[in-house]
């Protein structure tokens, strides 16, 4: 390689040593250091770092029975770890090759039910043994040191000098005097900041247009259908039963707010039935329909206890009384389940008479205003 000696930056190279970085090379010449033992060098460096090794308890004496026992123990641990790891690999790679297939379908052999547990057991065992081996090694075979390191407080010198640099820079900028610049900086900062968060505005949408929270796809004449889409006639159910129904619109059975419970009351329930005010005619015969979405936090209420006429929500145990307009009688829910007004159409199937007259599901700030 040729170097043009006259070009700046191409002369000298590594031959010219730069100023040194770090340790006190002036106090310790290479000759002095070379004359020291490795142990002394170790302690010297530690002392330089503020660490003093107070006391070292050497590991077991080489060749002693104590050492041999410890070595055997550690080696056995590592060997077992390796064994378990290879075994895990054999299970993983061998399944479906010389071992039965691991996949769920093949349950006859029982192997697929064993595959994951075996991987976990062998893999876990292997890793734990690696860890145990390392800990044993440090505890039984390494020398035990007790070392002390000094803790330093902040230095006054550093604080004062750094402060001077910072304040000096600020002072030189003259910002304190140049008021026009400070003011424009504030103005600019708020503008640029606003501009940078501006794209998040895309997240904001008006929840009040079209009242999506207050409406469902129930409407006048919409049939009540089961999950499979079949319509329901009065008399399909025995008294005391509950069926989950959906509006007969496309995707109605997957809508999050439309699920409704169609309940056929038993004669003794009909006798004591006290619907909510102005909703006396919402039922049809001994049938009533209530929203399935809990007014507390929106879980689907699901457990119907016929004897007590109570519907229980599994999430926080609110209970609603179906003979009292599904008023909450226990638990954290505050409002009754909304009632769906129902009737039957010309063909004798249940239909809704309108949408729910109030918002279904959990309460929110302006619910009463919708």
């Amino acid at each position, binding site marked *: 390689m040729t170097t043009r000696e006259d070009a700046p930056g191409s002369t000298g190279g590594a031959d010219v040593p730069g100023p040194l*970085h*770090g340790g006190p090379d002036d106090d310790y010449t*290479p000759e002095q250091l*070379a004359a*020291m033992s*490795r142990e002394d060098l170790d302690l010297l460096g530690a002392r330089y*770092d503020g*660490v003093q090794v*107070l*006391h070292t308890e050497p590991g077991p004496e080489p060749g002693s*029975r*104590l050492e041999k026992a410890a070595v055997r123990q550690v080696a056995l641990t590592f060997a077992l770890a390796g064994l378990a790891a290879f075994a895990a690999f054999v299970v993983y790679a061998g399944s479906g090759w010389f071992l039965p297939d691991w996949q769920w*379908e093949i349950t006859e052999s029982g192997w697929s039910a064993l595959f*994951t547990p075996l*991987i*976990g*057991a062998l893999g*876990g*065992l*292997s*890793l*734990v043994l690696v*860890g145990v081996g*390392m*800990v044993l090694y*440090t505890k039984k075979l*390494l020398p*035990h040191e007790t*070392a*002390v*390191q000094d*803790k330093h407080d902040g230095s006054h010198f550093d604080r004062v000098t750094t402060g001077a640099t910072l304040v000096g820079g600020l002072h030189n900028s003259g910002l304190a005097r140049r008021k026009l610049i400070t003011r424009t900086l504030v103005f600019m900062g708020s503008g640029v900041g606003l501009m940078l968060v501006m794209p998040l505005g895309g*997240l904001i*949408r*008006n*929840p009040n247009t079209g009242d*999506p*929270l207050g409406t469902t796809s129930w409407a006048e004449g919409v049939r009540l259908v089961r999950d499979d889409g079949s319509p329901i006639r009065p008399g399909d159910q025995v008294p005391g039963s509950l069926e*989950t129904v*959906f509006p007969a619109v496309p995707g109605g059975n997957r809508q*999050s*707010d439309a*699920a409704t419970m169609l309940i056929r009351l038993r004669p003794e329930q009909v006798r004591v039935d006290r619907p909510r005010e102005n909703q006396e005619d919402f039922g049809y015969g001994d049938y009533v329909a209530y929203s399935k979405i809990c007014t*507390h936090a*929106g879980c*689907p209420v*699901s457990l119907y206890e016929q004897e007590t006429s109570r519907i229980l929500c*599994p*999430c*926080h*145990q609110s209970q609603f009384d179906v003979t009292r307009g599904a008023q909450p009688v226990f*638990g*954290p829910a*505050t409002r009754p389940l909304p009632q769906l007004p129902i009737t039957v159409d010309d063909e004798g199937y249940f239909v809704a008479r309108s949408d729910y007259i109030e918002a279904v*599901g*959990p*309460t*929110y700030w302006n*619910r009463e*205003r919708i």
Partner: protein
Amino acid sequence: MARTATAPGVPTTRVGKAALEFDDRLIVAGPLRRTLNKVFPDHWSFLLGEIALYSFVILLLSGTYLTFYYDAAMTEVVYDGTYAPMRGLEMTAAYESTLYLSFDVRGGLFIRQLHHWAALMFVAAIVVHLLRIFFTGAFRRPRETNWLIGIALLLLAFAMGFTGYSLPDDLLSGTGLRIISAIILSIPVIGTWAHWAVFNGDYVGEEILGRLYIVHVLIVPAILLALIAVHLLLLVKQKHTQFPGPGRTEHNVVGNRLFPAFAGKAGGLFFIVFGVCAALGGLVQINPVWLWGPYNPAQVSAASQPDWYVMFLDGSTRLFPAWDINLPGNYTIPALFWPTVVLPGIIFTLMAAYPMIERKLTRDTASHHLLQRPRDVPVRTSLGMMALAFYVVLLISGGNDVIAEKFDISLNAMTWVGRIGLIIVPPLAYVFTYRICLGLQKHDREVLEHGLETGVIRRLPHGEFIEVHQPLGPVDEHGHGQLAYGGAPVPKRMNQVGGARRAIRGFFSPIEEPARVELEQQRSERGLAAAEADRELTSSGRPSDGGRPQEPRD
């Protein structure tokens, strides 16, 4: 002995030469030596934070693997995979990809379960670590910043857990998401707007899984990573706290150097944590989403339980009475708002502010590097136990339906037990803890004053029987010990002060010589004595009593 080369200090071995080349370029020898020489104190409770760190590493590794298969799409598909009971069922692509990962990827189920177990371990380790910091006073000046970072890490871990739990889009996670939606709606004034921003419309919409996914695998992990880095940098900078003991002062750290002793043990712990998570991931089924079924807003599984760390909120939601607040103008503050937004808000604010509160109350603004034993700070310890009792009542109430069913108690009774328990158990916990702390303190002082009980009974000339006590140090003319309490454990049995020699090692036959053991023990005693001699010691090895909330002494 380092072999002397032709020119002194010039390496002769290949490794040595390579190291020189390396350091010539990067100049790392100095910082590396400082790191290797760093002293770490040794105590089992200092491992808790490490466990949290290692679980996080495992989460990063296993989670990255899961992303190769998981698909956060909410498009409806018809299942046609290996798991026969679900063929033909409609579900979201997210749920289908989770089934695929569980049944059609070799070892996929293992990694999924490993990920979930590591997540539980992560949160548990953080919580226990936090308790250790609290009860030993490690949060005091200068470590308030790290306390705050710790609280932020705990909150982010919750966020990780919740977003991760929602990803498979099974019946359980969907129900959880439904409740979250209701919680967001319940916020006064901005609730519906916030819900529209998060879900891009009404519940459930098409966007939410994709958003939760990116929060779960990118945004929160990145913040966690950054905060953990700062947490550890601060730890290195401020040095670890230590318990008081011989030779330990406010101005030093006594323990092992990083290399090799501490590194060996820490590395070992990493593998043990990894191994335990792996064993759990393979052996103990968790979140079998194929049993829950795909999410369907009209269905719910009974006894639906969230992961353990969310249970306390479930509990508070169950216990809080049905109190909607109706405001003029037909506005409502839903009952749900208080137990799910306000209560955790208060809890976490109090936790974050605790170091400041204690500083205000005790007027202790000094720096502290020595830890306190919980018994020596009865007020703080009792406050902590009170908070813990509050938490445990909520936690149990989160599973009150299961308990009611198991023990055949009425649910309503369980709810009332929870409500009343929430009010009376915490103060009881305070009083009990306070008593216990004082009792322990008193016993420590008694042993220091009168010595250890030896179990030796002596009959005095006039017939009285006394038990012989072994003083722990020099005694005054009345035979009372002169040692002051130093904030360190006081030995309570003769064996702890060398009443019996340590057992000779060896299982079948001794592998040590008794004489050597004796020698070794003498040596170690001398070592400690020497260590103490040349260390400056405050009278008790502990700073002035300013370090703790002042207590009336009895």
